[in-house]
C-alpha cells in the first residue's frame, strides 16, 4: 500500500474493512515495526526458498574443519561431538539487529539458514542441488559444498544408521510413499526439560556445579578396589558428563561474546543515549544468562532464545515446544506489576520482539519438509493458557500480552495453541478470539481436561506432570518434566494413511513407486463381504504403522551411542543425574505417537465401498478396482456416484461415522500392542500440516472419488472440503463421537468461519456458543480460518497487495502468498461454516 494511503486511513477504517494487517502496522510501536520488517521470510514457497534467502556455509565449514582435525584425536565420539558444537559456538559470526533488545540467531547473517552437515547426507546433497539458495559467489561456494558433501558421505548420522536398520523397511521408507521424515535423534522435534531449566532454580553454571559433583563421585567409585559392571559402565557416563560440560561452557562463552559486542557498540559507536542504554542492558542480560537464572523478563526471553539457538546448532529442529506465558510469566509479573521497572507498553515491545526473533529462525530443510510445511520453517506451536501442576488456572498477564503482541506483529510462525479449561476467564477468551477474528488462524484451541486425561491414559504420565504439557510439535502434548519430556520425536513415524485403503486394492503393491510396500493381502475381488474387506484394511494399517515404528524404535535404541546429544543432555535433569545420554530409553517414560496424515479418506472410502459395492451392489469390486487402476478415467459417472451418493464423514451420519470409530478402535487396539523402547504405547494422531498437498501426487485414485493428483483432505478429522453439507454442529457432532481420550493422541479439526458473521460482540457470543458445544462434545482440538474467499481470491490475483494475509494451513499458520497455488486452492475450497 502506498505510504500516503496508509497514513490517511485510520486504524478504525482498516479494522472496519477487516484489513487487520494495515491496522496492526499503524498500531505497533516504531521499534516493532522496524524489527518486523527487518526479518526475512524463511519458509519455502512450495518446494523452494524465497529469493534472497541463502544457505549459511559457516556452521558447515566450522563443523567439517573441526571434525577433520579431531579425526585422530583420542576422544570418545560423544566428546568429539561436544567439541565440534563448542567450536561452532566459539567461532560463529554474531550480530545485533538495530533496535533489537534480544539477540541470538542460528545463522551468521539474518538472511541465512544454518546447515549442520553432520546429520544427514541426503540433506547435504540437497544443499548442493538446490538451484536457488547457494550464496554468492556460487561457483566458489559450490566447490566448498562439494567438499563438505564428500567429507560427510558415509559419516553423517543417517549414513551411520542406515546400514543398521532393516534394509527392506529402509527401502520402503526411502520410497517416500508411506512415511515422512528421518528416524534420527538430531532431526525432528525435541522438547526440553523446562521444569529443570526454566523455574529459576538453576542455569548453566549451577548445572556445571552439579555435574562436577557427579564426576567427583564417579571418579571415586571407579577407583575403589573392586571391579564390577557398574564401574565398567561408569566410564561412559564420565564421557557423557565431560561432553555436557563442554557444551554448557561453550554456551556461556557465546553469550559473553554477545555481551562484549553489545558493550563495544554502546561504548564506541552508538551516539543515541537511549539506544546506548539498551545495548548495555543487552550486555548485562548476556552476562547473566544462560550462566545464571534470569532476573527480568528480558533476561528470561534471552535465556530461552539462547537455548533454542544452541539446540538448533546441535540438531535440526522442526518444532519449538514451549509454554512461554507459564515460564516467563513470573518475570512479567515482577517487572510490570511488582517492581514496575517495565511499563506494559515496554513489555509488549519485548513480547513482540520475542515473537519476531522466533519467526526469523531457519535451518535448511529437505524437500519433504519444505513441501509439507510450506510457508514456515517448522511448527513453532507455542502452548498458552492451561492449568498448573495443581490444576489451577495458569493464565496470567503475559498470556494476554502474547495475544496482543501477536496481533501487532502478525508473524505466521510461531503460532499459539491455547489450552482451554472451564476456569479460563472471559477476558482471556476475548483476547484469544480477537487473534482468531484478526485472521491469524491461531490460537488453535485445545481441550485441557481431555488432553490431560489423554496423556495419563496413553503414556501413564502422572497427573501433576500431565497438567504441565506443552505441544511437542503441532498437536501432541508432552510434559516438559524429568522423565516425561521426549528428547526427540522422530518425524518418520508419520504415516501417509490414504495408502492403507489404496493398498487394499493393490494387495500392498505401490503402483506409484513401483514396489511392494504394504502387506500382500488377498486380491480385493475375492472378498465376499465388507468384513473381509475391512480385515484387509486392518492388515494394511498394521503393516504401514509397523514399518515406520520399527525404524524409529531402532534409531532410538541406537541413538545414545551412535548419535548422542550432549547439549540436550546437559539441560536435562535425568541425564545430569544419571550420566546417560538424554535419548537413553531407560531413563524416559516415553511419549511416542504416529502422526496420521491423510486419514479421513479411509472412512469415506470404506463407507463408499460398503454402501455401493457390498450393500446396494451397484458396482462389482472388479469394476471398482478397474476404475481405480485407470485413475477413474472413462468412469466419470461412476466416480461422481462415489462422491455424491456415498455417505461422507462430518455430516453426523452414523453410517460413515461408525466406520470412522471402528477404524480408530482398531488403531487404538494396535497402538497398545506396538511399543516404543521406553515400553510405552504408540497412539495415532490424525493431522496433516500440508502433507495433503505433498502427497497429492503420491496417492493413487481412491474409492471416495479422489483421483491421483487431487489434493487430499486437509485436516486430521476435518471433513473433505465441501463435503460437510449439514453445518458446523453436524461437523462437531461427528467429531464428538470419537473418544478423544482413548481413541488416539489428538485429532486435528480445521474450521472456516465467516469473518462478517463474527464481527462485534454478537460475533464473540456466537463463537463462545460454538465453543461451548465443542467443549461439551469433548473434542480435543479446533482451529479456525477467518479470512473470506474474496480476500483470498484477490490475494491470488494480486499477491503483492496481500503480503500480510495469514491463513491456517493445518497444524500451523502461514502467509497466504507463501504457500503453493494448490494449497491456496485447497484452503479456499474448505466450507465456510455459518454459526447460530
Amino acid at each position, binding site marked *: 500500500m502506498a505510504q500516503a494511503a496508509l497514513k490517511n486511513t485510520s486504524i478504525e477504517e482498516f479494522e472496519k474493512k477487516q484489513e487487520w494487517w494495515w491496522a496492526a502496522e499503524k498500531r505497533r510501536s516504531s521499534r516493532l515495526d522496524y524489527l518486523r520488517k527487518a526479518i526475512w521470510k524463511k519458509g519455502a514457497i512450495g518446494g523452494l526458498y524465497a529469493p534472497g534467502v541463502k544457505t549459511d556455509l559457516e556452521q558447515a565449514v566450522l563443523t567439517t574443519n573441526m571434525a577433520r582435525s579431531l579425526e585422530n584425536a583420542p576422544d570418545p565420539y560423544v566428546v568429539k561431538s561436544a567439541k565440534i558444537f563448542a567450536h561452532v559456538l566459539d567461532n560463529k559470526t554474531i550480530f545485533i539487529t538495530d533496535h533489537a533488545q534480544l539477540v541470538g540467531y542460528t545463522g551468521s547473517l539474518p538472511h541465512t539458514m544454518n546447515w549442520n552437515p553432520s546429520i544427514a547426507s541426503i540433506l547435504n546433497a540437497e544443499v548442493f542441488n538446490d538451484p536457488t539458495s547457494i550464496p554468492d559467489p556460487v561457483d566458489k561456494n559450490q566447490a566448498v559444498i562439494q567438499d563438505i558433501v564428500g567429507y560427510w558421505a558415509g559419516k553423517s548420522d543417517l549414513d551411520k544408521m542406515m546400514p543398521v536398520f532393516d534394509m527392506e523397511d529402509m527401502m520402503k521408507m526411502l520410497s517416500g510413499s508411506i512415511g515422512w521424515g528421518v528416524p534420527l535423534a538430531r532431526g525432528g522435534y525435541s522438547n526440553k526439560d523446562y521444569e529443570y531449566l526454566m523455574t529459576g532454580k538453576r542455569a548453566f553454571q549451577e548445572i556445571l556445579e552439579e555435574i562436577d559433583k557427579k564426576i567427583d563421585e564417579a571418579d571415586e567409585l571407579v577407583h575403589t578396589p573392586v571391579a564390577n559392571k557398574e564401574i565398567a559402565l561408569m566410564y561412559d557416563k564420565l564421557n557423557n558428563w565431560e561432553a555436557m560440560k563442554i557444551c554448557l561452557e561453550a554456551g556461556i562463552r557465546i553469550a559473553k561474546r554477545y555481551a562484549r559486542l553489545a558493550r563495544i557498540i554502546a561504548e564506541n559507536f552508538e551516539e543515541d543515549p537511549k539506544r546506548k542504554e539498551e545495548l548495555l542492558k543487552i550486555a548485562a542480560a548476556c552476562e547473566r544468562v544462560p550462566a545464571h537464572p534470569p532476573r527480568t523478563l528480558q533476561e528470561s526471553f534471552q535465556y530461552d532464545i539462547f537455548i533454542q539457538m544452541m539446540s538448533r546448532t546441535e540438531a535440526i529442529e522442526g518444532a519449538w515446544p514451549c509454554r512461554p506465558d507459564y515460564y516467563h510469566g513470573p518475570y512479567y509479573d515482577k517487572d510490570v506489576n511488582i517492581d514496575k521497572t517495565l511499563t506494559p507498553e515496554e513489555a509488549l515491545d519485548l513480547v513482540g520482539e520475542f515473537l519476531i526473533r522466533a519467526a526469523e529462525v531457519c535451518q535448511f530443510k529437505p524437500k519433504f519438509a519444505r513441501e509439507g510445511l510450506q510457508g514456515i520453517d517448522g511448527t513453532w506451536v507455542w502452548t498458552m493458557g492451561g492449568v498448573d501442576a495443581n490444576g489451577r488456572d495458569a493464565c496470567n498477564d503475559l498470556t494476554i500480552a502474547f495475544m496482543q503482541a501477536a496481533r501487532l506483529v502478525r508473524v505466521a510462525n510461531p503460532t499459539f495453541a491455547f489450552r482451554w479449561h472451564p476456569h479460563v476467564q472471559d477476558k482471556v477468551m476475548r483476547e484469544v478470539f480477537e487473534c482468531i477474528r484478526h485472521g491469524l488462524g491461531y490460537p488453535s484451541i485445545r481441550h485441557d481436561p481431555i488432553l490431560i486425561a489423554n496423556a495419563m491414559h496413553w503414556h501413564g504420565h502422572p497427573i501433576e506432570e500431565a497438567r504441565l504439557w506443552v505441544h511437542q510439535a503441532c498437536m501432541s502434548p508432552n510434559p516438559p518434566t524429568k522423565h516425561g519430556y521426549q528428547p526427540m520425536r522422530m518425524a518418520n513415524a508419520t504415516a501417509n494413511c490414504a495408502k492403507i485403503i489404496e493398498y487394499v486394492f493393490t494387495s500392498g503393491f505401490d503402483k506409484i513407486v513401483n514396489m*511392494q510396500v504394504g502387506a500382500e493381502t488377498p486380491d480385493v475381488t475375492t472378498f465376499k463381504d465388507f468384513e473381509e474387506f475391512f480385515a484387509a484394511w486392518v492388515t494394511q494399517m498394521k503393516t504401514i504403522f509397523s514399518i515406520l515404528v520399527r525404524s524409529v524404535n531402532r534409531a532410538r535404541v541406537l541413538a545414545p551411542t551412535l548419535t548422542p546429544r550432549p547439549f540436550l543432555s546437559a539441560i536435562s535433569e535425568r541425564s545430569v543425574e544419571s550420566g546417560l545420554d538424554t535419548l537413553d530409553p531407560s531413563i524416559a517414560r516415553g511419549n511416542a505417537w504416529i502422526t496420521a496424515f491423510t486419514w479421513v479418506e479411509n472412512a469415506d472410502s470404506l463407507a463408499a465401498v460398503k454402501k455401493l459395492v457390498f450393500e446396494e451392489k451397484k458396482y462389482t469390486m472388479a469394476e471398482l478396482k478397474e476404475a481405480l487402476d485407470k485413475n477413474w478415467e472413462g468412469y466419470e459417472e461412476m466416480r461422481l456416484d462415489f462422491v455424491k451418493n456415498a455417505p461422507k464423514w462430518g455430516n453426523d451420519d452414523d453410517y460413515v461415522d461408525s466406520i470412522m470409530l471402528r477404524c480408530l478402535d482398531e488403531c487404538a487396539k494396535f497402538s497398545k500392542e506396538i511399543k516404543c523402547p521406553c515400553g510405552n504405547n504408540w497412539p495415532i494422531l490424525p493431522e496433516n500440516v500440508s502433507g495433503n498437498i505433498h502427497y497429492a501426487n503420491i496417492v493413487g485414485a481412491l474409492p471416495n472419488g479422489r483421483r491421483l493428483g487431487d489434493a487430499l483432505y486437509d485436516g486430521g478429522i476435518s471433513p473433505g472440503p465441501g463435503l460437510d453439507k449439514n453445518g458446523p454442529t453436524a461437523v462437531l457432532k461427528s467429531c464428538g463421537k470419537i473418544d478423544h481420550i482413548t481413541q488416539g493422541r489428538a485429532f486435528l479439526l480445521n474450521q472456516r468461519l465467516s469473518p462478517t458473521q463474527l464481527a462485534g460482540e454478537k460475533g464473540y457470543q456466537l463463537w463462545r456458543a460454538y465453543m461451548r458445544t465443542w467443549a461439551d462434545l469433548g473434542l480435543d482440538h479446533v482451529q479456525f480460518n477467518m479470512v473470506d474467499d474474496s480476500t483470498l481470491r484477490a490475494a491470488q490475483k494480486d499477491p503483492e497487495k496481500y503480503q500480510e494475509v495469514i491463513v491456517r494451513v493445518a497444524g500451523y499458520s502461514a502467509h497466504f502468498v507463501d504457500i503453493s497455488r494448490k494449497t491456496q486452492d485447497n484452503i479456499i475450497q474448505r466450507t465456510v461454516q455459518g454459526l447460530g
Partner: protein
Amino acid sequence: MSKRDEKRQAYTSMLIPQTQTDLQKPGDKVCGNCKNFLESSWSSDGRGACNILKFGSNIHSQPPVYILEGKDGYPTKTLHDASACKYYEKMTFVDKDGYECSDPQYRRVMRQLQDKE
C-alpha cells in the same frame, strides 16, 4: 542366497550417499531427465527408481541388462549415466521453477539438470 541377502544386494546402491563425484555435471542422458525416472519423494538428493525396468536390471553393464518383469523397481539415481539405456525417453520439465509442490514425475529442480536446459 537368503531372501534377506537378495534384498540387501538389490538395495545397497540406494543406501550409498551422494559423494563428491556424484555432484559433477552429468552427461546429456541421465536417468533424472528420463520420463521413466521416479524421484523418491522422501528426499531430493537424487535417489529414485525406474518406472519400467525392474529389480535385477543394470544399465551400466556391458551389455546392459533389462528386466521388465517382477515386482520391485530398479533403483537408480538422478545423475546416473543413461547413455546406454534403450528405454531412455527425454522428458519435458513442466515445473521449471520448482515453486509448485512436488510432482515426482515432472519436477526436477536439481541444479545439474537445470544447467542442461
